[in-house]
């Protein structure tokens, strides 16, 4: 892919907090990373998981709990959340990849609902209240992530922003590397024709499981980052709505494109934020947009753009 485009995106990411409200950009980045992780599974391996909220929200709870109660520094908190999501992904994946299609989706959904139930009932999650007041702490014990810069009459939480941006870049780079590696090629082969991949001698189940674990870990990283940004881990994060939302983001942006999940996440999060005044009607509006998208341009925003430009984005 084009180097200039990457550079433009990087500069945009670095400059964004000076132009747009930083907390909002951080929310965008968290969901964009979540969608990228999901896209790795759906777009490149053809596995539709309907339980990714369990990784996203589960990691948020783990990070929140450890940072708040065990006094972990934020980077260790995020690492713990990511590892937890990866381990959970291994369990979910091992069970779910034994089945295909709708059964795969239903198994992931059922397992995710178990996590949701745990989040409601377990004492440390705070139930309906959520895990509130999570401290952001000091990065590596030194850099205060809570520090607010007052520049040009704005309040900028730059330390936290660049931490989250760095996490996003790492996650995004990992997804990008995975897709463009020989491993990624095999995943695509499995997506296109699984029996053929088997007959070529690939251990399909092992490839699927690894993809599932990577995807779950990165979804967890996104959730951990969100817990630090909002200082809150709540039931919304583990709810099946969130699992649905990430499917929506990926499809809107463009399945199996590198930039699609970004565009999709930005669209959905922005709609939620701008339309919050109409309350629960947001779902109706987003639903309508989804229907139009599926009927009129099935490849998603980025997918259609890529087709017009005759290149893969």
């Amino acid at each position, binding site marked *: 892919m084009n180097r200039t485009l990457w550079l433009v995106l990087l500069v945009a990411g670095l400059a964004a907090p000076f132009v747009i409200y930083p907390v909002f950009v951080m929310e965008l980045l968290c969901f964009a990373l979540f969608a990228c992780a999901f896209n790795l599974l759906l777009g490149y391996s053809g596995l539709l998981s309907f339980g990714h909220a369990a990784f996203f929200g589960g990691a948020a709870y783990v990070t929140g709990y450890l940072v708040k109660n065990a006094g972990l520094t934020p980077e260790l908190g995020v690492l713990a959340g990511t590892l937890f999501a990866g381990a959970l992904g291994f369990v979910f994946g091992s069970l779910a990849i034994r089945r295909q299609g709708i059964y795969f989706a239903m198994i992931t959904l059922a397992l995710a609902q178990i996590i949701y139930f745990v989040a409601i009932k377990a004492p440390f999650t705070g139930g*309906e209240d959520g895990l*509130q007041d999570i401290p952001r702490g000091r990065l590596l014990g030194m850099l205060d992530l809570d520090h607010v810069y*007052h520049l040009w009459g704005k309040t900028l939480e730059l330390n936290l922003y660049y931490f989250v941006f760095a996490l996003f870049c790492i996650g995004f780079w990992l997804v990008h590397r995975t897709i463009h590696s020989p491993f990624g090629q095999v995943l695509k082969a499995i997506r296109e024709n699984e029996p053929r991949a088997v007959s070529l001698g690939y251990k399909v189940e092992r490839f699927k499981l690894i993809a599932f674990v990577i995807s779950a870990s990165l979804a967890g990283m996104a959730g951990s980052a969100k817990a630090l940004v*909002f200082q809150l881990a709540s039931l919304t994060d583990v709810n099946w709505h969130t699992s649905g939302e990430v499917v929506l983001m990926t499809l809107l942006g463009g399945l199996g494109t590198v930039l699609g999940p970004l565009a999709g996440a930005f669209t959905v999060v922005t709609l939620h934020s701008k339309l919050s005044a109409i309350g*629960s009607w947001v779902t109706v509006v987003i639903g309508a947009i989804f229907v139009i998208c599926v009927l009129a341009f099935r490849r998603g925003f980025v997918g259609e753009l890529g087709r017009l430009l005759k290149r893969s984005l």
Partner: protein
Amino acid sequence: MNVMLRKALAGMLIGVLASTPALAAPAKGISDNVVKIGVLTDMSGVYSAIGGKGTLTAVEMAVADFGGTVLGKPIQVVSADHQNKADIASTKAREWFDTGKVDMVTGLLNSACALAVQKIGADKKRITMNTGAGSTDLTNKDCTPYGIHYAYDNYALANVAGSAIVSHGGKSWYFITADYAFGHSLEKNTSNFVQKLGGKVVGSVRHPLSTADFSSYLLQAQSSGAKVIGLANAGGDFTNAVKQAREFGIVQKGQTIAGMLVFDTDVKSLGLNTAQGMQFASGFYWDRDKASRDWSKRFYAKHKAMPTMDQAGAYSATMNYLKAIKAAGTDDPDAVMAKLRSMNISDFFAVNGKIRADGRMVHDMYLMEVKKPSESKGEWDILKIIKTVPGDQAFMPLSESVCSQVKK
């Protein structure tokens, strides 16, 4: 890719280093040349009848009655629906404080949302005047220097109503509790009073917020054999539970239903036939005296329903906040808080009101009873005041508060 990564890291470092912290100048007068009040409440869910648009209407009335300006600067009102989700509430409040120039947030029905917003308010040094939520944690372990708990709390509800019910012979209790901060706190407070007065709690069951079907909870309560079924929930959950209890014939079989937090609008939606004789505590009733009647009729003209304690409280809170700004000559949160604490709050809403060090606004509370249909003379003539409990007896004494703001 390596080049990319190096560039990214370099960019990040420059970004962090280049931005040197500049100190915010101490504000005198009105910050940002505007006083902005945010109404954050449930606009569409189970609590929307208690607060919702009515709270916004009340706050707008207060601003209009104050004259629309304070110290020569305009007063603006913004509002948002938190949908009873703590994450939406905290995101919205954070955005309001960071970029929306909002100086004070009121409403805040739902304790989970209220706790989240009060903490953010303290971080950002902004005042929160809570008129909707009940949890006593707001003025105890989670109290802040900028958080005011205005209308009522669970301790006062349990104290005034729970005690009355126990002394009328309701000695054994079973709780049906909303499973979040508010319900837990209400159940705990009520249990304490029941046990102190020699009653006992035989059990409890918890239901998720916004439940449609209470049958299994009610059957458990019925089979517990308790004399009193305490409903530690509110709004739509409370009315649903009472209606379904009626279908099961629970009251006819000799058990009493006790709503711990009941608003006028709930009684209205149940109807006097169902609700008659029920006793509960409240901090406000529209038909209490001339001042409350006059104000409530003005509110009714705009909202087409009589005000609840939350809505009337939001008017009173806004009005007194604006008065405090005027008296302090600035909207600086510390100065305004000092002024609010030194003021006597007496208006159509609160009698003998005073804001304590822990943020609790102490004022007279009332034991209410729902009228029989034969006693009611009009559509909204639904309650009578049985007893007035002075504020210092109704609310938790300051000596029992575990709030860190209280000097002991």
